[in-house]
């Protein structure tokens, strides 16, 4: 009878628990290539923030990840909420719109990255060509090649990829609200903006919670898309570097020298703990106040 759980447990213990625990463990040891040396306490953690040039990389990537989260929140959650509220009000063609918004979510981020890379290419890319044709040639620029725009361009593509998902989650949440609430408010003469702000916003709180947490996790795990669009160092000049890329470079060469595995494990531990902690705080914040119908 125990045979029911043994295959799953075996796979889980060997391929999830063991490597995760070992990663946490490794972060407290000195490494010489693949060889584990002595216990060094928190030295790997302090080294991440104090050894040049690694420290600038860590702060730079952390700053980028924070920007990715804040802007992704605006692009995916706030815009997603507004689009969903329009879809909620107008029934005509809803299913078609939903499908159109959602389709990008099914493609590989690598395919999406390369596709947008071509669209953004400076001379013959579709975007700059379009701007020229529309008489906005002054706005055309080297979107992915210039340090001032690269990160934001990647964030835009990430938003493009995930927007449909947010819209669908918000819409489902809105459709679950009893319609009588809106009828009553409308009869009282509440305006659209007021309806949105005083009813729709608080009543979709669970959707906001889930999407904020998911956006946060996706922002801090960001890897595939930047890798495809900007390469393993987040070009140009690390301007679109992320903690995910930095971790990969520590784990598989290119950064951190011979001590890299210990440093990478320390970074992994901080990310695992940090993401769990902040996600937990977000859930706490969103569930603190309950809205009653």
């Amino acid at each position: 009878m125990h045979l029911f759980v043994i295959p799953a447990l075996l796979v889980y213990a060997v391929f999830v628990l063991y490597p995760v625990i070992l990663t946490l463990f490794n972060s407290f040891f000195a490494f010489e290539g693949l060889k584990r040396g002595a216990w060094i306490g928190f030295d790997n953690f302090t080294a991440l923030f104090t050894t040049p040039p690694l420290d600038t990389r860590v702060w730079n990537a952390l700053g980028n990840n924070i920007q990715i989260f804040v802007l992704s929140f605006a692009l995916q959650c706030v815009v997603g909420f507004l689009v969903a509220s329009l879809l909620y009000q107008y029934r005509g063609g809803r299913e078609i719109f939903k499908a159109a918004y959602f389709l990008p979510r099914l493609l590989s981020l690598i395919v999406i990255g390369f596709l947008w890379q071509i669209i953004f290419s400076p001379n013959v890319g579709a975007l700059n060509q379009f701007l020229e044709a529309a008489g906005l040639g002054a706005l055309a620029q080297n979107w992915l090649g210039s340090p001032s725009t690269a990160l934001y361009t990647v964030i835009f593509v990430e938003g493009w990829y995930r927007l449909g998902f947010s819209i669908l989650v918000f819409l489902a949440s809105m459709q679950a609200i009893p319609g009588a609430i809106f009828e009553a408010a409308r009869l009282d003469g509440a305006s659209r903006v007021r309806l949105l702000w005083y009813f729709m916003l608080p009543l979709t709180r669970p959707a906001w919670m889930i999407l904020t947490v998911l956006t946060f996790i996706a922002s801090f795990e960001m890897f595939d898309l930047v890798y495809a669009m900007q390469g393993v160092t987040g070009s140009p000049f690390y301007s679109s570097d992320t903690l995910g890329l930095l971790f990969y470079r520590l784990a598989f060469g290119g950064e951190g020298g011979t001590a890299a595995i210990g440093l990478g494990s320390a970074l992994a531990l901080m990310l695992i703990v940090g993401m769990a902690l902040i996600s937990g705080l977000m859930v706490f914040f969103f569930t603190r106040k309950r809205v009653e119908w």
Partner: protein
Amino acid sequence: MLTTTTTTGVVGRGHQGAKRTRGNVRRRMPAMLSYAVLVLFAIIEMYPIFLMVANSLRDDLDILSNPLGLPTQPQFGNYAEIWERSNFPAYFGNSVYVTGVGVVVLLLISSMAAFYLARFSFRWNKALLMVFMLGLTLPLKLAVVPLFMLMQSLDLLDTRNGLILVLIAERLSFAIFVLYGFFVTLPRDIEEAALVDGANVWQVYWRVAMPVMRPALATVAIVSIVGMWNEFFFPLVFIRSDELRTIPLGMLTIVGEFSTEWALLFAGLTLSSVPMIIAFVVLARQFMEGLTEGIR
């Protein structure tokens, strides 16, 4: 197209009870504006995909001289050419194999585990469930170094089966979470009746529990198919040989090799997306529901 959707919109809005005191124009304006916004977002979301497919049917010169143009004489030869000149057939086969085997094995072992956790009451079941649920918060990608060494010692590096094991492990907690959640909402009556009738637990699991589990199994299957088909990080780390690459990793090779032949590049990108696009067109509702219900 804009005008027709707008009229239906006004009708739809009237049904929602607009205030009659307002003028006709003032009542139509928000509806038209709203539809304009909805259509604009649909264009933004769809246009790049449209551009990818359209350009895959043109030739290099045509694309470079007029990047926004449409295919005048569709060149289906691009697909044949990328299929023959690159390792694409191998990538495609590997993706089908990895996703197919991965999803089937995942469904099998996770449903067995969920059945065990939900239907038996051993002392350790609560703790076991907790341990499995812990995995929901652990990003396995950050544990890739020990995983890499483990795979090395098990001789699983650069093998498709090794990759499959990791992809299953990554989704195990999620699958058990969804299936267990579904199991506990189901009454045990039929299963108990089957036991009384002399069926053994394996028969109950396979003949009674599995069929009623279909909606939850479909959710897990859809999330896993999309995830495994598009997985990039683990193939990047574990697969070295070009002929063992899955599509997303193979795209790196293709982009490197055909960086100046845009038509072929677009054909490759299109070919790699076609299976998901077709599946979505056929099963749009199931995909949207599955991926939003099985959040993450």
